[in-house]
């Protein structure tokens, strides 16, 4: 069979080099950032950025909108705090425990929630996360409204004390970059390819023999584990684990971060998280405490403007513009 081919065939965009460039620039900027900005604030922001990136792995690359990711972030923070304070574990072990806990919890929550689709899926994740919240509120282990306070940061591998904010920041930066690389690898792996096929056309993927629920479960577990790493790191940075991180508004906030930055992009969630974190700081500096009463309103307005003007998020829109001009 011979058929003439049309002369102009569109070819697939290969954005990989641009992605690595963006990663390198981001890493370099973050490495020198403590010169200009408080390392404590930066370290906290990076924890949220990793949380957003982990959430994006699920919503952006698997098409599953979880409304209960605070459960993994906040839950893992309690585990890390408990391990570091009560059991006196070194920070690296506390973080491994937090990550493993969130991952296992994620597999369980995923197994229950992905039986339903769309809004029902989101509602199940929300309901399960709320159960976790009330558990944390009531259980003696988590100390209710007080949370776990005075968590020691300890010494990394028994050598490097993390009590210094700068040392803590660079440790969190290393975790953050490792987390981003892990997400990049997951997205660009055989598993990632399968996920992409499932998101593109689920029925077709099923007809090719993919047990799509199993893939979604694993994606959910991986996303939850990385969210747990972020939550654990935040517990060490702020030396506390509190109910705030488990509250449903935290699940909402991470959605906001990812949407603002750009769903399904590598750096978008990071930019979105830093943006959301920076707004209150900047407003505080401009207008003082009076101004900050209007925080929620201003945040809401920014969100509405961004979603209307940049539907693909800040980074998503930039990437689309760049591709068009190329």
């Amino acid at each position: 069979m011979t058929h003439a081919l049309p002369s102009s065939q569109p070819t697939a965009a290969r954005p990989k080099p641009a992605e690595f460039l963006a990663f390198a620039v981001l890493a370099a900027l973050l490495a020198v950032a403590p010169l200009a900005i408080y390392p404590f604030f930066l370290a906290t922001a990076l924890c949220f950025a990793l949380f957003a990136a982990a959430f994006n792995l699920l919503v952006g690359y698997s098409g599953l909108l979880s409304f209960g990711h605070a459960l993994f972030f906040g839950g893992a923070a309690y585990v890390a705090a408990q391990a570091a304070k009560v059991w006196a574990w070194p920070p690296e072990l506390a973080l491994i425990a937090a990550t493993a806990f969130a991952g296992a919890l994620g597999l369980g929550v995923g197994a229950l929630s992905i039986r339903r689709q769309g809004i029902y899926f989101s509602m199940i994740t929300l309901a399960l996360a709320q159960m976790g919240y009330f558990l944390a509120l009531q259980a003696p282990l988590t100390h209710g409204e007080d949370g776990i306070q005075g968590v020691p940061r300890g010494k990394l591998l028994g050598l490097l004390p993390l009590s210094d904010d700068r040392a803590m920041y660079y440790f969190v930066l290393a975790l953050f970059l490792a987390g981003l690389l892990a997400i990049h690898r997951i997205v660009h792996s055989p598993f990632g390819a399968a996920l992409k096929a499932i998101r593109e056309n689920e029925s077709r993927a099923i007809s090719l023999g993919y047990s799509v629920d199993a893939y979604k479960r694993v994606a959910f577990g991986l996303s939850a584990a990385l969210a747990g790493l972020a939550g654990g790191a935040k517990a060490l940075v702020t030396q506390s684990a509190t109910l705030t991180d488990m509250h449903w508004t935290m699940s909402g906030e991470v959605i906001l971060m990812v949407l603002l930055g750009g769903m399904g992009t590598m750096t978008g969630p990071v930019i979105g998280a830093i943006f959301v974190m920076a707004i209150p700081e900047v407003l505080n500096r401009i207008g003082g405490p009076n101004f900050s009463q209007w925080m929620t309103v201003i945040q809401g307005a920014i969100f509405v403007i961004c979603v209307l003007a940049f539907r693909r998020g800040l980074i998503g829109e930039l990437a689309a513009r760049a591709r068009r001009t190329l």
Partner: protein
Amino acid sequence: MTVYALETSGLTKQFAGFTAVSDVGLRVRRHTIHGLIGPNGAGKSTCFNLLTKFLAPTRGTILYEGADISRAGPAEVARMGLARSFQISAVFPHLTALENVRAALQRRRGESFDFWRSDRILKRYDADARALMAEVGLTGWEETLAGEMPYGRKRALELATTLALAPKMLLLDEPLAGLGQEDVGRIAALIKRAAEGRTVLMVEHNLNVVASLCDVITVLTRGKILAEGDYAAVSANPAVQQAYLGEMAEPAHV
């Protein structure tokens, strides 16, 4: 081993008080091309979705190669070698044509859960994927995004992807629907080639193609089997003529 690749008995599907498929006993002989035809609303699509397991039957059994698949899931039967295509061409639009075929090869060979390895290892399937694409006349289209291909090429790509599963049996849902005249002949030829050494069951509206491709034809009306046989026998059947004549006279489906 039976002589039938697919065998149903008492297959019934009811939707809220409406019986779409009623007591269908369909038998598809191994290594034949079997056509499933009928006027609009005859229950062809429901029947097809029951066979591919995208719908669960209300009653009845389905045997595939002698094994009971009445309660199996759609992905499970796909892994057993019962592969389907879709009425609306089903491709992964934002993957390249080559990646579309690879998606099937990758699943069949395993390792699709390996999230810690680079997707560069998927390149090992490129040669096989290219060969499958060449078989359906898609050489040169490898790097095109599937969503940007013309409709006829999408259908060919879908067929290549389905064949990548090395299926024992193909279930094709109106494989020629929406194609231009030139493409109809090409895809029909591809189906004939793909059917070598395989069993094919196809739902199809284009009666010229059904006449030339199918060894056996089952006519469905109102969810029930009306007649069965080769094209000559079926088209001479007065009951079929009565139920179908209006449809056959209309050139709209060609």
